[in-house]
Each structure stands twice: as structure tokens, then as C-alpha cells.
């Protein structure tokens, strides 16, 4: 009977279901019976984890799993905002000519199946994780792609639209962002890219860290940007792939704001609409993407008005009302179409 009781108590102890009284009872029983204690020791040792086999299995298995973890981008959450505080930030804003992009896609068509695509629809911001642990935010109407070798033999991504990257450090595999006009090389830091196909200029903005920008049409021109510097490159939208004869760019300091935590160039990540000394036409294009609307000016002169402002992205009505406080105009909305007039 005693050995049965010992077996029952051993079972309870293993199953984490024994009470303190039962554990004490077991100790007493085993202390009184040398043979039973020996048997209990053996039975207890049976089933010890085989750690070597487990480690070998897990290491090989993770290779299989890691590549499959990024396919579905998770939507941007406000909770993630504290990421910024911790991160040194480099913002790079570029914009791209449409023609080259289209040509490139055609050229690489046979490889298209192997390319991984991430996209944010108009009116939405998307946050996703790349296979190397880099975090990417895609602004409305943006798209990135990378090939199967990403994180294995390269860390190259191709961008249209606007993204912000928090790049994982890896000296062995430099992170390179390709747009139609330039290549941007980064070694482990945060990073913002804007490359909408219908914009007239590219911008690279650095907030912390260092990047190297190489102009695609004149590779001898390499520009290193330091924190709080911004490179602005003039591009013509909707041109063909014909190389531009000269590259027109300038490096400038970031415009200061009263709120140092706010950087105009990257405010979109925080669901803010921000613009400084931009034309009404440029602001309208930002709003079209953010709210998925079409904006028409009934007065051409309005397009050239210069505006500055920052506001929370709420809805198109609220945004237009806030704009009316900066400059007087009338608007009407018909479904997804906004008409502006004096």
C-alpha cells in the first residue's frame, strides 16, 4: 500500500498538483524507505529534456519560420508612438519620376513572382516588419518591394511613395533604399523615404545618424547627410527614362519649429498633416493621399498660395475647416471629390 501511495504522490508532484501537506508526506515516506527513495529518484529523472536535440531542432526550424513572418503588414497603432522616443531618427524623403519606375518593373518582370510587396492604400497608413527586424511605416498610397534574397545576401528595397524605416543594425549587410532618382545607403538607424510618382522634387531628411545618397543619373555625386539636414532634388514628374542632363539638388538645414519633437517631414507617422512654406497645390496633393479624395481648384491662383501649418489628421471636413483659418476659401464636397474656390 505504501508504494502505491508513493506512486500517487510522485504523480501529483510531477503534475504540479500536490499540496504542501502531500509534499511533506512524500518526503516523510521517502526518508523512511531507502529503496523507495532510490526508485523515486530514478522515476523523477526519467523524461529529462534532451536539450541538445531541442536546440538543434529549434535552430533549423526557425530558418523555415523566420521568412514567413512579415507577409501581412500590421496596421499602424497609436500605441507604437513611444518607439520614436527611443530611436535615433533619420528621415529621408525622396520623390520619384514615374517613367523610370515603370520601366524597371517591366525589365524585372520575370522575377516579379519572387518579389515581396507591401502596400498602403490611399487614405491609410500601414506599419510592417521586414525579415531583418527593420520596421517600416508606409504612408498612404505607398508601396515597397524586395526580393527573396532580402536579409540573406542583400537588404535592398525599392520604394514608391513615402515610407519611414527603423533599420536594424547589421554591418555585414548594408541597407539600401532604391528610388527612381537615387540610392540611399544606411547602417542601422531610422529612415524616412518619400517617392510619390507625381511629385516634382525628392527630399532626403536626416534627423539622427548618417546616410549616403547617390544620384542615380550621376553616380559620382555622393552626398553624405548629417542629422537635421535635408537634401532636396528637383525632378520632373512623368518624364521618360531618358537620363537627366544635370542633377539639380541642394542640401539645407531642417526648418525649426517651436515643438522640437515635431519634424515636419515625418509628422505623417503620427497621423499629423504638416507643411511649411508649401504651395496650396502641394498641400492639396498631401491631403488627396491622406484622405483618399480628389481635390480640384476652381481658381488657378489659389494653387500658388504659400501655406504653413500642422494639424491632427481627423477627417477631410475638419482639415479643410482648419485650412480656412490660414487662408480664406470656400469648398464643397461631392462624394470623394473636393472643389475649392475663392
Amino acid at each position: 500500500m505504501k508504494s502505491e501511495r508513493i506512486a500517487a504522490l510522485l504523480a501529483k508532484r510531477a503534475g504540479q498538483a500536490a499540496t504542501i501537506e502531500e509534499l511533506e508526506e512524500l518526503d516523510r515516506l521517502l526518508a523512511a524507505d531507502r529503496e523507495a527513495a532510490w526508485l523515486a529518484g530514478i522515476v523523477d529523472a526519467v523524461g529529462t529534456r534532451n536539450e541538445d536535440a531541442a536546440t538543434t531542432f529549434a535552430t533549423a526550424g526557425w530558418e523555415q519560420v523566420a521568412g514567413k513572418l512579415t507577409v501581412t503588414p500590421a496596421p499602424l497603432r497609436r500605441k507604437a508612438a513611444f518607439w520614436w522616443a527611443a530611436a535615433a531618427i533619420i528621415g529621408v524623403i525622396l520623390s520619384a519620376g514615374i517613367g523610370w519606375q515603370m520601366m524597371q518593373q517591366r525589365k524585372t518582370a520575370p522575377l516579379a513572382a519572387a518579389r515581396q510587396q507591401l502596400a498602403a492604400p490611399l487614405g491609410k497608413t500601414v506599419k510592417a516588419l521586414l525579415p531583418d527586424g527593420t520596421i517600416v511605416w508606409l504612408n498612404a498610397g505607398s508601396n515597397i518591394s524586395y526580393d527573396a534574397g532580402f536579409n540573406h545576401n542583400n537588404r535592398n528595397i525599392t520604394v514608391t511613395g513615402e515610407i519611414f524605416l527603423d533599420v536594424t543594425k547589421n554591418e555585414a549587410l548594408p541597407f539600401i533604399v532604391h528610388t527612381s532618382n537615387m540610392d540611399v545607403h544606411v547602417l542601422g538607424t531610422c529612415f524616412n523615404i518619400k517617392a510619390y510618382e507625381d511629385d516634382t522634387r525628392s527630399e532626403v531628411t536626416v534627423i539622427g545618424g548618417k546616410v549616403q545618397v547617390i544620384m542615380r543619373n550621376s553616380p559620382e555625386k555622393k552626398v553624405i547627410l548629417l542629422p537635421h539636414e535635408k537634401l532636396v532634388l528637383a525632378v520632373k514628374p512623368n518624364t521618360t527614362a531618358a537620363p537627366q542632363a544635370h542633377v539639380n539638388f541642394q542640401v539645407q538645414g531642417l526648418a525649426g519649429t517651436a515643438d522640437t519633437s515635431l519634424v515636419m517631414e515625418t509628422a505623417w507617422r503620427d497621423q499629423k498633416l504638416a507643411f511649411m512654406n508649401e504651395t496650396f497645390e502641394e498641400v492639396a496633393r498631401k491631403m488627396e493621399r491622406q484622405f483618399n479624395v480628389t481635390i480640384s481648384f476652381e481658381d488657378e491662383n489659389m494653387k500658388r498660395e504659400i501655406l504653413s501649418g500642422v494639424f491632427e489628421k481627423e477627417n477631410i471636413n475638419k482639415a479643410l475647416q482648419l485650412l480656412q483659418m490660414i487662408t480664406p476659401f470656400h469648398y464643397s464636397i461631392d462624394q470623394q471629390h473636393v472643389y475649392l474656390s475663392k
Partner: protein
Amino acid sequence: MHVTMEALLYRIQFHDDQQAFKALYQQQVFPLYQFAFAFLKQRQPAEEIVNDVFVKLWEKRQQLDKIHEIKVYLYVAVKNAALNYLRKATIFTETDLDSLHVQHFRLEADTAQLLLTHELQQAIAAAIQQLPPKCKLIFKLVKQDELSYKEVAGILGISPKTVDAQLTIAMKKLAAHLQPFAGAESIKQKAKSY
């Protein structure tokens, strides 16, 4: 470095932390694979099913806080996937816990620690091999995977009482099988300690 399960889950859910997910994977994957193998008896589908469960878990990471017992959740997900696989593969075979293939597990004692003779090691292996499949699986889940009665009950869809009864049977059988060695071995150990 040991990070609690709660900390890992938090980092996965709120920081999209792939390193934390890797740590969770490495902690849990092997016993889950063995569990899948018990149903499928083939290495490759067992591996695929387990990895698939983890990929799906990653995709659902934003709802991680709604899963109350992550270990039970993972074992149940593996069990369901394995049974689905079997249903598709073998239309006419009913699978239940009593026909499981648990031989695969290396349920041997930590020999280095106990200084067991070769003869005794073989006796232990034979004793474990003799256990009925369900009994052996429960013994494995409790002893090797370090799951509680409650967790095993949740995973297998049986009552904690049944788990207790099965494990007690396993303990008794093992003890009975090894009893003949007890006298001699314990005396030998006593002699060594002098």
C-alpha cells in the same frame, strides 16, 4: 538569460519583436514537434504543422493578450492541425489517444547524474516502452514538457482526474518494473558514499 513568458508575449504583441518571438519559438517548438509526431508518425508533416502554428500565432500577435494559456493554446493548435491532416490523409482511420505512437520520445533517465548501469538503463527504457500509449503520452507531457495536470487536461480534452489516474498508473508500473534493481542498486550507492 531567462525571460518570462509574459514578458515575451508582451514584446511580441506591442513591439512586434521578432527576437522575442524567436525566443518563444525556441523554448516551445521541440516538445510541440514531438507532440505532432505522436499523431502523424512522420517527420516532415509534423515539422510543417508546428511551424505553421507559429506563423499563424505571429499573424495573430495583436490578439495575444486574449489567449489565456499560451502553452495549452499551442498544444491544442498542433493537435487540431495534426488531426485535420490525418482526416484528409486517411479517410477511414479514426485516430484516438489510445493508438498514438509515442515510441519516438527519448524518455530516458539523466544517466550522468544517477550513475546508472547499462543494465538498469535498458530496464528503464523497457519499462517506459511497456506503458500504454495514452499513459505514455501523459507521462511525457507532464515529465518532459513540464506541463501541469490542468494544462494536460486542457490539451487532451480530458479531466484532470483522468490525467492524475493515468500518471499514477505510469509511476506504479515504472516502480514495479524497476523494483528488482532497487535492493542491489541502493546498497551499491550506499557503499559508494562511504
